[in-house]
């Protein structure tokens, strides 16, 4: 005897948290059933004696999967969930469902960061799935989420995070993460190089937040399209003016002595710093000057690592020393009489400092 049809519909839509997660994780019904069996679902109260091994679970899981499947359409446009009449779900549960639907696996998003959210990328998801151990289904859902959010906010005015929150009803932190993902996908920063492998999604997300805050159009004008997605072109253009800091030998020496004076005795790697100062300064300023080129902009993080972080790591700078150095390095430039681009310099250096500090770890 087989059940051709087996459904359960509650007036209040019941969704088992555990099954929802299994569904989100992309497990098939039978995989989910065996996972639940292993997790001891049948020992819970209510399973009762003599419940056929798995039969009850199978029926239950199928049912939830169907519900999830029907809900998915609504989850694609979360504000609809609050207005739709088909499923009666308490508001707090709705929020939970949305949040978990849009939650993502950090290893997965790390792989995808900076890649174009295109069909081609989607096709390659099976490699990502194999690499991260996340089911292809789940990868696809997460990818589609990124793409959906990207599409939705691409052309909108106003702050990126607010737009994401408004259109997808996500909690603040999740909305910020999505903002970072959208930002990376738009600017296509290179994150896949071997040198960058040690960086986590969190590192990049933090950097993205600084970049969005200080380097985009939104940082100067809050009423333009794509204000938080595109970098401020004018600003990037102006950055070329910083070249003088390394091109003018006097200025470079003056800068060095100012920094050395300030730091003498305060950092443990003083000698290394002194020897390396010119290289480091050149590195940072050259990065700034090249940002107008799309290719170099994409390599922004690679360059930061190559030109600054790797030398420091080689000399075993403690993070606190790096912080002190960067602060002094930025501040001392103000004392240079011949240097006239103080505001520009600060806008550049503050963000770079924040990024470097975030990225400086093992």
């Amino acid at each position, binding site marked *: 005897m087989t059940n051709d049809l087996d459904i359960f519909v509650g007036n*209040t839509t019941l969704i088992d948290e555990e099954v929802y997660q299994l569904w989100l994780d992309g497990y098939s019904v039978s995989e989910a059933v065996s996972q639940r069996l292993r997790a001891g679902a049948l020992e819970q*109260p209510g399973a009762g004696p003599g419940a056929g091994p798995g039969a009850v679970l199978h029926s239950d899981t199928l049912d939830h999967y169907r519900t999830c499947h029907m809900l998915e359409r609504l989850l694609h446009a979360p504000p609809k969930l609050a207005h739709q009449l088909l499923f*009666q779900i308490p508001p707090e549960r709705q929020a939970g469902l949305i949040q978990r639907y849009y939650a993502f696996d950090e290893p997965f998003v790390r792989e995808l960061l900076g890649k174009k959210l295109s069909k081609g990328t989607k096709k390659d998801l099976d490699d990502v799935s194999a690499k991260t151990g996340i089911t292809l289904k789940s990868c696809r859902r997460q990818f589609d989420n990124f793409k959906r959010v990207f599409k939705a906010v691409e052309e909108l005015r106003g702050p990126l995070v607010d737009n994401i929150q408004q259109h997808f009803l996500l909690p603040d932190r999740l909305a910020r993460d999505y903002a970072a993902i959208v930002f990376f996908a738009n600017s296509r920063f290179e994150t896949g190089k071997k040198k960058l492998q040690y960086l986590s999604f969190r590192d990049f997300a933090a950097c993205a937040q600084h970049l969005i805050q200080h380097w985009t159009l939104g940082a100067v004008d809050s009423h333009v399209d794509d204000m938080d997605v595109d970098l401020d072109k004018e600003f990037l253009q102006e950055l070329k003016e910083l070249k003088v800091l390394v091109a003018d030998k006097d200025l470079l020496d003056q800068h060095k002595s100012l920094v050395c004076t300030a730091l003498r005795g305060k950092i443990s790697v003083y000698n290394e710093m002194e020897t390396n100062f010119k290289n480091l300064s050149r590195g940072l300023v050259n990065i700034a000057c090249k940002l107008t080129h799309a290719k170099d902009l994409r390599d922004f993080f690679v360059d930061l690592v190559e030109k600054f972080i790797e030398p420091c790591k080689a000399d075993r700078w403690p993070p606190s020393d790096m912080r002190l150095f960067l602060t002094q390095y930025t501040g001392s430039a103000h004392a240079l009489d011949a240097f006239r681009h103080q505001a520009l310099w600060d806008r550049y250096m503050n963000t770079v400092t924040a990024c470097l500090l975030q990225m400086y770890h093992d």
Partner: protein
Amino acid sequence: MPGKLKVKIVAGRHLPVMDRASDLTDAFVEVKFGNTTFKTDVYPKSLNPQWNSEWFKFEVDDEELQDEPLQITVLDHDTYSANDAIGKVYIDIDPLLYSEAATVISGWFPIYDTIHGIRGEINVVVKVDLFNDLNRFRQSSCGVKFFCTTSIPKCYRAVVIHGFVEELVVNEDPEYQWIDRIRTPRASNEARQRLISLMSGELQRKIGLKVLEMRGNAVVGYLQCFDLEGESGLVVRAIGTACTLDKLSSTSAFLPACNSPSKEMKESPLVHPPSHGCRSTHNSPIHTATGSRLTQNFSVSVPTLIYTGMGSGSAGKEGGPFKALLRQQTQSALEQREFPFFTLTSFPPGFLVHVGGVVSARSVKLLDRIHNPDEPETRDAWWAEIRQEIKSHAKALGCHAVVGYSESTSICEEVCILSASGTAAVLNPRFLQDGTMEGCLDQRLSWQPGFFSIGSEKGEVDFFPQSQDSSSLLGIEETSPAGCGFCHIPYDELNMPFPAHLTYCYNCRKQKVPDVLFTTIDLPVEAMVIGKGCLIQARLCRLKKKAQAEANATVISNLLPFMEYEVHTQLMNKLKLRGMNALFGLRIQISVGENMLVGLASATGVYLTALPTPGGIQIAGKTPNDGTYEQHISHMQKKINDTIAKNKEIYEINPPEIPEEIIGSPIPEPRQRSKLLRSQSESSDEVTELDLSHGKKDAFVLEIDDTDAMEDVHSLLTDAPPPPGFYSCNTEIMPGINNWTPEIQMFTSVRVSRLSNITLTNQMLNKNFNDLCENLLKSLYFKLRSMIPCCLCHVNFTVALPEDELIQVAVTAVAITFDKNQALQTSKVPAEKSLQRASTDNEEQLQFPLELCSDPLASQPFSPAKEVLESASSHTGIPAAQRATSIDYSSFADRCNSWIELIKLKAQTIRRGSIKTIASLDKASPLAEGHARHRSVPCSTNSTVTVVKMTPLSFIPGAKITKYLGIINMFFIRETTSLREEGGVSGFLHAFIAEVFAMVRAHVAALGGNAVVSYIMKQCVFMENPNKNQAQCLVNVSGDAVIFVRESELEMVPVQSSTVISQPTSAGGDVTT
């Protein structure tokens, strides 16, 4: 022109994309009523159009208003080709036609398409202006209220219960008309939906007319069903109970007692001499009284049986008792009625004098085309025949009325089984319409309106009626307490032709009671039970040869008696296995398929204190002197005994412990009494004069003479009890649980099982069917495990055989949570005591005001059974059996006090509440209650959707129903031609049922309500054709839309500390508004 219907189309949202090119839609709306159609402008290129139309006005007859549904069609404008329909909304405007219900329908409705399901929503406002035109010859029955609820609705009181009303209308089924061959499935489905909507409107109007003729103003327990007879047509029929209802208001609560009621009562004592005979037995419940007769339409009347503990009446033999009955003047009123039937299942206390047992009748008919839809005589005659049979069965049981009455059909091809069943009962005529009685009744009611509120406000029972006038109430049975009166046999034991076990009532020791009692009604509120109840099901399949027409009908009618017998045996065995002695809410469904019959009986077993303790089940082998066999038998016997013991533990059935608790009760000579009781249960020799037949406690003997019987015994033992923390019943309330918490979850579950077609045998079938039901229950328990401790109430199974080898089982029920801790210390406090205490111990009382919040009574003051039990016990002096044996005095006092406090509170808040309602009753603020309270921002698109509770029960735990907004009766068809793409049959039906719920909720919300009570899914016909990738499903649901207010919200009203304690009775009794 007595009515003007006004409709405004406000907006749409979430519309589907109809124009692929632009990904948008150019939507407009057609509003149709009768033959008039209006259109809105096209709102171009939007999925969220804002039409904001003018008011479309339809000037129509009220007859038309009642029959026609308002039809709203949303279309996509197309310049070059025909406009595409997006979907429709049918709105039944009936709720707007009675004065006390809704005054406006306004809200978002799902736009429904029979092929695509819900496609967006539309915001509509509907109003009706009715002109009074009373002098005309009326064809309409505007103003008659309809309730699905099978008890007197809360916030009403019954002035008169008039009795049975029925009607049916027939028509051709559009699906079978010639035109169906050339039209689209969508058009055909819509024609059907519209026709059924029209027919139910017409039916309701006609029933309303009958009610007006009877001078009633409402139909309670309204049950409308469809028979899809295929080729031969479509029948829509309905039954109900006509009543005159009065809306309860606070003014009546404080009417002074104007008459000396007891005198009034005694003028017409209910004569109930035990002189009318009846032959009955449960040993041979089958009575082949009515043979088959061939009429113009082939018809076999199936021998029917009467389920009682005592068995069967027969149509042929009732001459004697009939005359005896006729002699009784007081009952003549009922006798004169064509069918003294009541579709109600719960009644005001005292209404049921005696309950005889279940009466049922079935008849197998051959369908043929209904030639003239305007003269549905054949179908009428069929039902009249069956009802006649039921009536005579009831008479045979010495009863003059049938309560808890229902009718059903099962159709397969051209064969149709008509079934009717109910509970034979003797009623207190005072509640019924009767020229001479009416005055008395009215006086009575005005003297103590609270009396009726038991039926209407479960739990909010005043405590005096029984103690004051139970003697007058029950006529000559002056000494018979209310808690057991209904168990006493209405028939004469001396004339019983079959040996049956009668004993003196275990409660009052005065009257005879049967050893088991089967009924179709809910447990009367005054009934005293021990322990908890449980769902008991009998399940049965029978193979049947495939046959045509008359041969088929004959085969079926030959099988039916055996099925009935087996169902009855199973029920009896399972009841005994649980150590219980009575069944309530019994519903037996027999469905016919191509090659088999399926029987499914569900009921709630309880242990009534008035009835004797059931004996065990004894197994007797037929092959003696076989060692291993004997061993096997004894092994089985042991298993059975263990099961019984275990069940008693699970359901907390421990009757012998009563005696000690009796000490100190107001009944004289309690000690002696307890002695009697004990001797009763332990040794029978002392009290032979009391116990004539039952001292031996004979066990029910099962003879195992072949493998079949063995199977039966095995199947008995396979019924797993619900897992810990779960209880289930199919009645409104679970006996023994009274502290419900407000969380409820209504659900529908459907399973279709395919039987493996290898050598089908009856045993295999039985096992499969049994497994199907058991597994379904197990699944439900598992699904709802997060609600533990909880009880599944009103578990309603329906079974159908849609095709060969397919069994479909659908369940609708509600899971209600309750408080486990407080369930343990069930506080049964004699009311009088508590009152006394309260009036003297003011100090103590003040010390425990905070108790209110945590007290079980405070959190659940409306719990139905509890206070009733209290009232019963206060009267009889026998403490309710559930009272914990070790309540120490102080906690007892606490409870009393907080409980009194509660009454005060209640009286206060209620008085406040009613004042408020009076204000909102005058029409100045139409939707005041509904909108203000529950839909704070109904029109803003940002508002979230109103939460609408649904429940098959007539009440909502922890809440108070403040207004009935009208009946919800909806019929939907859903069809698909892309079954696989929609997730197969499960995906298809899952979505459809969810859509049905959504549409019901939307209609309720639009009426301004926040719940549907007495919700029922009357039909769920599912057909599939996987080869063609097609499926179709028809669903019919109904219920009562209501506004409820949480108890906690009510109690937030500040309490004035004043006089109420002096008048707890009237205040507590007549509370509703």
